[in-house]
């Protein structure tokens, strides 16, 4: 906070708290809409709808802004060609061939994810390294500040996406 901002913001927190208490609820965006917002790909109208929800659920801001910062910097950790090729061979070895059916996907996903994780470990994917190493100063600073952090009750988002019981049900 700068000296310039101090007087203007005096009392603002209390005023915003009163305002928050009186805001009408708005529809919660799904993950795809939030992802599109993070990438600045929404129309003004859709973007306003997301921002309206975020203003009411600022705990979700950490996730959205962290993803936005990384996305804007082109730093989301995608695979490198050599490692992708290695993973494909591992995945091929993990499957017996044929087209998997949905009810068999658990085994397939486990094998595939194991291969992916091996690749990840080979590449040395680490969240901070993968995102911080290629970001601009402004966005890496922001991402660091936001910490890709646990902002609180992002379960609202998880619930909206039907993710609430992911671990147990699968």
């Amino acid at each position, binding site marked *: 906070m*700068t000296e310039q901002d101090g007087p*203007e*913001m005096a009392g*603002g927190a209390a*005023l*915003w708290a*009163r*305002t928050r*208490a*009186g805001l009408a609820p708005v529809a919660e965006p799904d*993950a*795809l*809409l*939030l992802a*599109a917002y993070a990438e600045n790909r929404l129309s003004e109208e859709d973007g*306003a709808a997301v*921002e309206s929800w*975020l203003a*009411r659920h*600022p705990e979700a*801001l950490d996730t959205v*802004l962290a*993803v*936005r910062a990384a*996305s804007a910097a*082109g730093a*989301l*950790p*995608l*695979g490198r060609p050599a490692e992708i090729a290695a993973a*494909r061979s591992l*995945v*091929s070895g993990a*499957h017996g061939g044929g*087209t*998997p059916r*949905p009810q068999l996907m658990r085994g*397939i996903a486990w094998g*595939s*994810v194991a*291969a*992916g*994780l091996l*690749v990840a470990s080979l590449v040395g*994917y680490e*969240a*901070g390294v*993968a995102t911080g190493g290629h970001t601009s100063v402004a966005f890496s600073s*922001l991402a660091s*500040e936001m910490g*890709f*952090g646990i902002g609180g009750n*992002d*379960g609202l*988002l*998880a619930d909206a996406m*039907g*993710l609430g019981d*992911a671990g147990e049900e*699968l």
Partner: protein
Amino acid sequence: MARDTDLEVALLCRGDKRAWDGFVARYAGAVRAAVLAVLRQAGRDASEAADLVQDVFLRLCKDEFRLLAQYDPARAAPATWLTLIARSMALDHLRRKQVARVPLEEAPESAVAVAPTEPVERLAIPPDLLSPRQALILAMLYEREMDPAEVAAALGIEVQTVRSMHHKALTKLRAFFGEERG
């Protein structure tokens, strides 16, 4: 940066092996990075990441690929979408762990007591009193405790625009609540 807009949703939703091989190989890193970031922020052991990464991919398959089928490459890159899902699932995992950690009957009374609170004035705010952007800026400044420069960087606007919108928003709110500028 690799462009990752060629996700073959239709093939993935049919359980095509080759498509899944490529999909997992390509995005396991992004999913793992997102999960690890959440775990580390919470001071949790990174060993929990493996199960969570698996859960993310399994979630995409659940209910005949219901979640995966919702993906539209025209709207957002797969890595962005998957990162959001992965973070949300990791946060949800942490909440469940937190809840499960201490059984209610074993929690000290002070931990479950409801503190007396002042009555909260709840005056309905007209929907057009603040623009969504104004409300978001106030939330970022006062609830996330970001400074104007951080808000400006996050929203891709000028710092002066943040200050101007903040000033106008507070002016409207003070008028609405009948407050004098202190």
